[in-house]
């Protein structure tokens, strides 16, 4: 059983969203100022641009049909992926836009397009409800609008934010997640625009340098989600950290536990150690796994210290430049079954009812 928890569904141009936007916001999109060439909206909010582009260079779909066909051939079929969770791409950058109504209109349009264009094509593809976290009430509305669909398996936001996710400002989002029974996931991205603190100490200058530091904001979110009592308020909620690195988690948990023991009076609503909430409620996806020059066994002992066998879920990051091939994953061989699929089946409860696709999925388009 293989579940790919980070599979990017691109669009051929952001203009695919036009039919899904209300008239008011369609004017913004077509006549408003664009941050880059037409069709590139909204990625020019990114402060760091990959100097070679984000995609694997052997994957160059042009039309919408090719987007799916190539994903199917080079990824889903090639590796016998049972389920691939769509994580979108540029749509996540809506979180950088100051106008919360426009940001919300964009993610809503994206979600409708995702259902029509992707989820309807192949039963292996499962959706993430993209939200604009700067508008928590509107985000909660969107979660309730689509949250009962069987093909939507999580709620997704960028990891670049205005404030750490545990902050009560965001709680309407978790309340809605808990109500519809979906995990809340964050994915690397959304740095820039109104999200002004993506990197501690201020912005770095180069892409690879920044990409290597992708865990910084995620560390803050993990600590904040635990400290603010999100998992006491919603004990069943899973918080999934996608594409933010993993090996940093264990040392942060050690610090959180030690500091909490001395200062538990700051957060009397907590009933367990931070690491216990982590183990119960937080999950990490693998790509990009750290690759120690000093030997892979160093990584494995760190993964073990973060309960990796239970907390890690496979992600390929298709079709990006740092894509991971299922067969080349650096984890202990006896963990493979859990990390490749079993953990995800537990977290994405919707998949349990979706039935297991043992044969090639049915193409409906």
């Amino acid at each position, binding site marked *: 059983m293989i579940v790919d928890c980070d599979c990017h569904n691109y669009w051929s141009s952001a203009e695919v969203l036009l039919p899904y936007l209300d008239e008011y916001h369609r004017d913004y999109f077509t006549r408003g100022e664009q941050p880059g060439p037409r069709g590139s909206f909204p990625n020019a909010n990114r402060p760091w641009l990959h100097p*070679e582009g984000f995609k*694997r*260079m*052997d994957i160059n779909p042009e039309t919408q049909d090719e987007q799916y066909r190539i994903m199917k051939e080079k990824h889903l079929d090639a590796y016998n992926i049972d389920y691939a969770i769509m994580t979108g791409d540029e749509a996540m950058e809506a979180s950088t836009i100051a106008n919360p109504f426009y940001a919300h209109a964009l993610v809503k349009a994206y979600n409708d397009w995702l259902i029509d264009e992707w989820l309807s094509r192949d039963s292996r593809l499962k959706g993430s409800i993209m939200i604009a976290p700067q508008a928590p009430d509107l985000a909660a509305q969107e979660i309730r609008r689509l949250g009962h669909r069987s093909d939507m398996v999580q709620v997704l936001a960028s990891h670049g934010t205005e404030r750490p996710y545990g902050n009560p400002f965001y709680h309407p989002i978790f309340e809605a997640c808990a109500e519809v029974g979906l995990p809340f996931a964050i994915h690397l991205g959304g740095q820039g625009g109104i999200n002004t603190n993506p990197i501690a100490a201020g912005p770095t200058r180069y892409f690879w340098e920044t990409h290597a530091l992708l865990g910084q904001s995620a560390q803050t979110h993990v600590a904040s989600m635990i400290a603010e009592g999100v998992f006491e308020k919603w004990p069943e909620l899973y918080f999934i950290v996608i594409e933010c690195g993993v090996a940093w988690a264990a040392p942060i948990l050690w610090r959180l536990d030690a500091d909490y023991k001395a200062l538990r009076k700051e957060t009397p609503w907590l009933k367990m150690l931070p690491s216990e909430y982590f183990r119960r409620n937080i999950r990490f996806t693998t790509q990009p796994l750290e690759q120690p020059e000093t030997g892979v066994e160093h990584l494995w002992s760190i993964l073990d210290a973060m309960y990796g066998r239970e907390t890690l879920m496979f992600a390929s990051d298709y079709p990006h*430049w*740092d*894509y*991971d*091939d299922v067969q*080349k994953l650096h984890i202990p061989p006896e963990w493979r079954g859990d990390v490749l699929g079993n953990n995800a089946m537990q977290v994405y409860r919707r998949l349990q009812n979706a039935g297991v696709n043992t044969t090639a999925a049915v193409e409906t388009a």
Partner: protein
Amino acid sequence: MNGQGIHACKASDVAPGQQKIVRINNMPIGIFEIGDGEYHAMLNICPHRGGQLCEGPQCGTAVNGGDFGIEYGRRNELVRCAWHGWEFDIRTGEALADPKMKAKTFEVSVHGNDLYVHM
């Protein structure tokens, strides 16, 4: 070089900066022209993680980092793997960032308009 090698393609099929991927003995191989009729062949399987090495762009790179300046050079002498983008020297197969990592290369001989790969 022993013998004739195996016919790969026409020289005119391979322009500088535009490699051609062929199959020889059922192996996928990239044929490159890096300038002045200098041809090279490289297995289209990356030593890093097995990606489609030769399908990435044939290119140059930053050659001079002295004084924190950047200069572009080595035009067409490198191929950047289609998967994770590591740069490989087309002549030697060495990865620029990690010379221990070597792509498999083959010699190419030219006879008129025909290219032969020696394995």
